[in-house]
């Protein structure tokens, strides 16, 4: 299916998990399709990067569940910052470990999982988190991280077959399999749709991260993580990300950036990026 078809399955008000990590292997083509849709009022769960920034800039996020939002090589995500400082974005802040265990709880159909992380910090009260006491002799008390059950997960991987099996070829799986397992429906975009028999020559079975039984649709999106990294297919487009961050700092510049890069379909985006790269060369 196309990115627009995948996004047409989403509804306003949904809880959407977005895979990747910071400015790494984000499903940006799916996010751009979301920007073209009229879906809004979302609760977004993300190891946040420019996915959060773009959706926040477009006013699509009601509530964000995250441990951070960063562009990695640029520490602070400018649109996320601006939305927070204008009071537009409700934030449920959790530790990275709580995101991991919240998604795991949802994948295992458990209401919570206990973690030591969070105790004594301001995450407990701000997030409305409760504690749970061990029934064993130790009697220890832990933070009970609620299941982060998702309506939809959006992830981007290097390769997938038409049935939804998907393979990562970079150094880190991030939490993409957990996002898919925590969701009622998951949509996987990939650099290339391949025949199932092509997986094994590309990497061992442990690279087959996402399994077809939890995937509802596959989108072939060459450059679909741009401008975040998608190694080994490509690294982060630092020049483009710098231009994005610079434009975000000024409303007029952001209107111009939106007009140039985000007003057409994915083909128009790629053509505009090619022009940008040619100019920079």
């Amino acid at each position: 299916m196309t990115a627009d078809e995948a996004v047409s399955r989403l509804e306003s008000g949904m809880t959407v998990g977005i895979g990747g990590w910071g400015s790494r292997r984000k499903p940006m083509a799916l996010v751009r399709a979301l920007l073209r849709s009229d879906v809004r009022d979302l609760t977004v769960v993300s190891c946040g990067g420019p996915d959060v920034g773009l959706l926040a800039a477009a006013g699509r996020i009601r509530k964000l569940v995250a441990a951070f939002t960063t562009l990695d090589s640029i520490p602070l995500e400018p649109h996320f910052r601006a939305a927070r400082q204008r009071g537009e974005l409700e934030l449920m802040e959790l530790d990275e470990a709580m995101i991991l265990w919240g998604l795991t709880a949802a994948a295992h159909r458990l209401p919570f999982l206990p973690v030591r992380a969070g105790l004594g910090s301001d995450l407990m009260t701000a997030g409305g988190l409760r504690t749970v006491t061990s029934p064993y002799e130790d009697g220890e008390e832990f933070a009970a991280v609620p299941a982060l059950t998702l309506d939809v997960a959006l992830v981007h991987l290097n390769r997938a077959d038409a049935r939804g099996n998907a393979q990562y070829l970079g150094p880190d799986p991030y939490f993409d399999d957990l996002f898919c397992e925590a969701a009622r429906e998951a949509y996987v975009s990939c650099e290339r749709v391949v025949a199932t028999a092509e997986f094994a020559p590309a990497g061992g079975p442990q690279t087959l991260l996402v399994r077809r039984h939890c995937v509802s649709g596959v989108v072939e999106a060459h450059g679909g993580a741009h401008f975040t990294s998608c190694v080994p297919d490509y690294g982060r487009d630092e020049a483009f990300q710098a231009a994005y961050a610079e434009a975000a700092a000024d409303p007029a510049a952001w209107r111009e950036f939106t007009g140039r890069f985000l007003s057409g379909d994915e083909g128009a985006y790629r053509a505009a990026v090619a022009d940008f790269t040619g100019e920079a060369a």
Partner: protein
Amino acid sequence: MSGAGRAEVCVVACAEAWRGDGEILASPMGLVPTAGARLAKLTFSPELLLTDGEATLVADVPALGAPARVAEGWLPFRRHLALAAGGKRHVMMGASQLDRHGNQNISRIGGPERPARQLLGVRGATVNTLNHPTSYWIPRHTPRVLVERVDMVCGVGYDRAAAAGPSATRFHGIRCVVTDLAVLDFERPDRTMRVRSLHPGVTAEEVRAATGFPLDVPADVPRTRMPTAGELRLIREVIDPDGLRAREVRA
């Protein structure tokens, strides 16, 4: 070789944080702590584990900014979190704010609904501070960073851990705070911050004036030790030949 500059004193002070840690993961955040961890591994703490900052444990010790060549293990983010919870780690984090009890903030300045300045977010500050030794690196020691009270408790300090109970204190421990002026720690009965050593050329008055709460500077406070000739050579020729450390520390 000429005398050491302030940045080099700071690199050695950061390295000292990992002395005696044995076979654990050293997780430095920032250039000077990264140089310090590498110096520790090349000298007095050879068993330390280091990563490339991504998903690989590296066996060699490259220069800052240069790629590592020898992978000795795989540590993607999810395994990194398991390692943290397992306790075999000593992190040196940054801090936008840090108070006298060691509570740290990297998330926001101002309130939760509409912060005056939204920063990075809590990241792994709570899993770190509650599970394994934590130190802090403050490249610019000012009253805006060393504050009476942090706007949000991300990294958990001694008072908050004690109030949260035995599960919070069981593995909690803040080893030291290295700034551009001094090394500080919490080695007092009430677990509040004190000066362990002043960097060469820094006065007690200077540090007090740069701190947003009353700070204990013992009358007989020692000087932070100078780098040895061997350490200076490693810093200047092997670990940081491009002088990146100067980006973090004022001359």
